[in-house]
């Protein structure tokens, strides 16, 4: 087994510090928002996780296409890593969104386009894992996984569009557009906390993806060794 690369070790440390600093900025540095009060501080992480969740989603669809074109198993590992990490971050996004929604709109859940699309994407991911689980041949598993991430990658943006279009025709949800307006009225210190959260989560995202890809190739090596032993 090859040792953990030094660059990855450094990235681990950077990730931890970035998370710590981002937490400090969000909870203590940024000023308390006037209308929302303390709960608004959840917004920095909410946007951070949503951003990398989306990043993972796009990367997964692109690596799916790359796999279908090249048939290189490394793209498959990349795709799985992106989907897994993105699943986790979208889940966090939804939880943080609910924490925000409770005091803001007096409900845990709103059928707001962004939140709903995130939830649908989670369902696509669950379907993706179930699909992969049902296939034994690794090559076929990679092929079907790639096709499905591609379909999801095309469908989820349309889902978002559809929900938003229909909501604008019938504006029933209270304050669905609030998040946007608040972003516009951020003060300088809020902006620092906001952009640092984006940066911190991007670093953490890269770190986790790297770890997951490394885990994937180690798993393959273990399989190969087991096979050698059994022969």
């Amino acid at each position, binding site marked *: 087994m090859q040792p953990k690369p030094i660059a990855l070790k450094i990235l681990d440390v950077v990730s931890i510090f970035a998370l710590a600093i981002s937490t400090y900025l969000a909870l203590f540095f940024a000023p308390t928002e006037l209308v929302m009060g303390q709960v608004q501080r959840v917004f920095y992480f909410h946007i951070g996780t949503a951003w990398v969740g989306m990043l993972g989603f796009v990367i997964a669809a692109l690596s799916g296409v790359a796999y279908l074109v090249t048939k290189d198993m490394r793209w498959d590992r990349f795709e799985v890593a992106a989907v897994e990490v993105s699943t986790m971050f979208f889940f966090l996004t939804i939880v943080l969104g609910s924490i925000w929604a409770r005091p803001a709109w007096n409900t845990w859940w709103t059928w707001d386009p962004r939140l709903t699309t995130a939830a649908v994407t989670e369902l696509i991911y669950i379907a993706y894992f179930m699909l992969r689980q049902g296939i034994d*041949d*690794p090559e076929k598993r990679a092929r079907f996984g790639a096709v499905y991430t591609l379909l999801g990658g095309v469908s989820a943006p349309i889902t978002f569009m559809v929900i938003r279009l229909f909501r604008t025709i019938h504006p029933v949800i209270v304050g669905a557009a609030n998040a946007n307006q608040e972003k516009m009225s951020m003060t300088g210190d809020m902006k620092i906390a906001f952009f640092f959260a984006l940066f911190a989560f991007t670093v953490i995202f890269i770190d986790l993806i790297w770890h997951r890809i490394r885990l994937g190739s180690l798993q393959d090596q273990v399989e*190969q060794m087991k096979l050698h032993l059994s022969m």
Partner: protein
Amino acid sequence: MIIVKKLIKRFGLKTILRGLDFSVRPGEFVALLGPNGAGKTTFLRILATLSRPSLGQVQVAGYFLPQQAAQVRARLGVVSHQPLLYPDLTAEENLQFYAQMYGVANQRSRITEVLKMVGLENRRKDLVRTFSRGMQQRLAIGRAVIHDPEVMLFDEPYTGLDQDASEMLDDVLRSVAAEGRTVVMTSHDLARAADLATRFDILSRGVILASITQAELQNSNLLTFYKQALVD
């Protein structure tokens, strides 16, 4: 007619075929023998264009696989242990469907000709659902020759047949081979293949271990031993 060089097929990390070399001259009838799990079906599926080689060169009827799969498919007839027929269609409708899929000319007369050859002309209007296993398998052969292929592949065609049905299948196979086609048949039963094939190749652990001709088989006492071993 078939040339295979250093063929390797992997499923994930498992290697099924390990540098297999194999060739068949036009008009030969080769029986591929070997234990279960030796890679016979995998090999045949590659020749049949249903599976892609991982490495190595495969040439069927003068065309390379997998690049020229479409040309190979048009010249290839395949019978597997499943009949590949639709039970809710009649014998005639099944043949008609495959004739259309192969773009066969003069479909009506060709279907009659084929039904006659496999001895099912009086059942042409009956649903395949009502056929016995042996009749289905004979119709499956009719299906496979509908486009008059140059090369034929049989994958364990005797699976699930009783003695009578097997003998009838022998006759059909013989008449198929007699038309000058090149045939590769997998089987795990040497005695069954002994009367039909002109050459016998033993496939084991993903390579061809040995290859003997019909004459060599008759000269040796191998067949006698084999039959004796089956009785014991």
